[in-house]
């Protein structure tokens, strides 16, 4: 099957992007140096094409109740024009995907799933909608998604929109006009920086990309690919589905139990996975098997996903889920699940890097937090 192309495909190629197959999409991996793109997002701004993300609209009088039933969050309690990080779990508590849900109206929500899981989420929501007065609509082709992330993002957007940016809080959205195009403008992102995500019609994507590029040029905005997106989110300690999150884990295993809302007042408090998640919560409280931690290396070799974490005496105690050289810290970093006995910050452990044990130190997540 040939990969899907975003509305910005020709533009990426004209910029000389190295393209890569990602979840069935042909996406820009990097335009030049991924390290420079990373540092631009931390110090200036980066422009991302995220059109591969899967938008699903849930609409109708019981849209909120349906999402309270289908997801682990208390979605109907979300204010209109606010967004929430949440998850969709199986009956056994395993994570099907992590999601951002935007409340776009009194009875309408936009669920944004990872590209690799969009079909799974769409199918689950459709199935779970039975009995609710709500409609689940596949809007993957209705939107392109462009993100502007970095300390200069606010100024760049302000130069191309009259929208009330000071009033647009983190994890909120607005219907807005950006560069003369109607969009949903959200103050969300996945880089650890301030930034915006612009949901637009695919036909408007190139115009908006060009307008943002022009507006951002004087302050150092650069196009940024998936490669730096991964190192940015890793530094920010944000989990990635397929790495830190999977169907084998519950939100409590991943240290994200706070997203599970047992206090929902709709549907008599019932939701898919509740029983299993209550048990997982109790287990995590009493006797956590493994914990998600950060690791920092003083060496040069990079601890990568799937490598074993070992104690100083060489006993396997965990597994790396993501690892990369950190451009901001200037040293290799990783996220790993390790046995609770070795999870305290400051603990000296090691990583088996292709047969050689490289010393690393356990640290608290995130590795990087922006100054506010």
């Amino acid at each position: 099957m040939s990969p899907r192309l975003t509305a910005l495909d020709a533009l990426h190629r004209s910029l000389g992007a190295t393209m890569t197959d990602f979840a069935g999409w042909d996406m820009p991996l990097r335009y030049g140096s991924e390290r420079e793109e990373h540092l631009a997002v931390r110090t200036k701004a980066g422009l991302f094409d995220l059109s591969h993300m899967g938008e699903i609209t849930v609409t109708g009088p019981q849209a909120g109740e349906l999402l309270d039933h289908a997801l682990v969050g208390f979605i109907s309690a979300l204010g209109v024009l606010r967004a929430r990080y949440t998850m969709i779990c199986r009956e056994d508590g395993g994570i099907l995907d992590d999601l951002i849900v935007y409340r776009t109206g009194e009875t309408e929500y936009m669920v944004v799933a990872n590209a690799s899981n969009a079909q799974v989420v769409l199918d689950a929501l459709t199935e779970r909608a039975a009995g609710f007065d709500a409609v689940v609509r596949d809007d993957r082709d209705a939107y392109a998604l462009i993100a502007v992330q970095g300390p200069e993002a606010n100024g760049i957007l302000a130069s191309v929109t009259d929208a009330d940016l000071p009033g647009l809080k983190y994890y909120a959205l607005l219907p807005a006009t950006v560069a003369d195009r109607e969009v949903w403008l959200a103050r969300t992102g996945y880089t650890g920086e301030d930034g915006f995500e612009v949901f637009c019609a695919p036909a408007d994507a190139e115009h908006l990309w060009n307008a943002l590029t022009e507006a951002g040029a004087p302050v150092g905005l650069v196009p940024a690919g998936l490669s730096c997106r991964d190192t940015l989110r890793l530094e920010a300690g944000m989990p990635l589905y397929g790495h830190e999150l999977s169907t084998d884990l519950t939100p409590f295993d991943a240290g994200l139990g706070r997203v599970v809302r047992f206090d929902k007042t709709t549907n008599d408090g019932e939701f898919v996975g509740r029983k299993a998640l209550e048990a997982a919560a109790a287990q995590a409280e009493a006797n956590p098997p493994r914990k998600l931690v950060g690791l920092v290396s003083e060496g040069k070799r990079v601890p990568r996903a799937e490598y074993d974490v070992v104690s100083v005496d060489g006993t396997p105690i965990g597994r790396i889920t993501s690892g990369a050289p950190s451009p901001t810290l200037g040293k290799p970093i990783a996220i790993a699940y390790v046995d609770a006995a070795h999870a305290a910050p400051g603990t000296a452990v090691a990583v088996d890097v292709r047969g050689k044990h490289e010393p690393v130190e356990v640290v608290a997540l995130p590795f990087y937090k922006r100054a506010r």
Partner: protein
Amino acid sequence: MSNPTHLQYTEEHEWLTEAVDGVSTVGITAHAADALGDIVYVQLPEVGDTVTAGETCGELESTKSVSDLYSPATGEIVEINQAVIDDPASVNSDPFGDAWLYKVKVEATDKLLSAAEYDAFIKA
């Protein structure tokens, strides 16, 4: 970046110079450096090691991946480029120049390609 015509190449994307007093200089091509992305760690064989044509003799680690370094020649390592170990990013910026990797006393080589043949190979 075009591939210098005075060098010879392998399908594993190394280049080597014509031997002077039996010694050739080895590096990786701009094409390979570009495909790897930002290189962050270089592991080279040590002086005195014997390397074998077509076999691994080190590692190149980039942001996203780790790749084996293959040897284009069989022979003894007579010098390594410490500057590249200290500054792995130089492989991205000057792969055919300052970022050479090591010098080897050549006893035999793998099948080598001319610049034109290598150009055709990477475009195929």
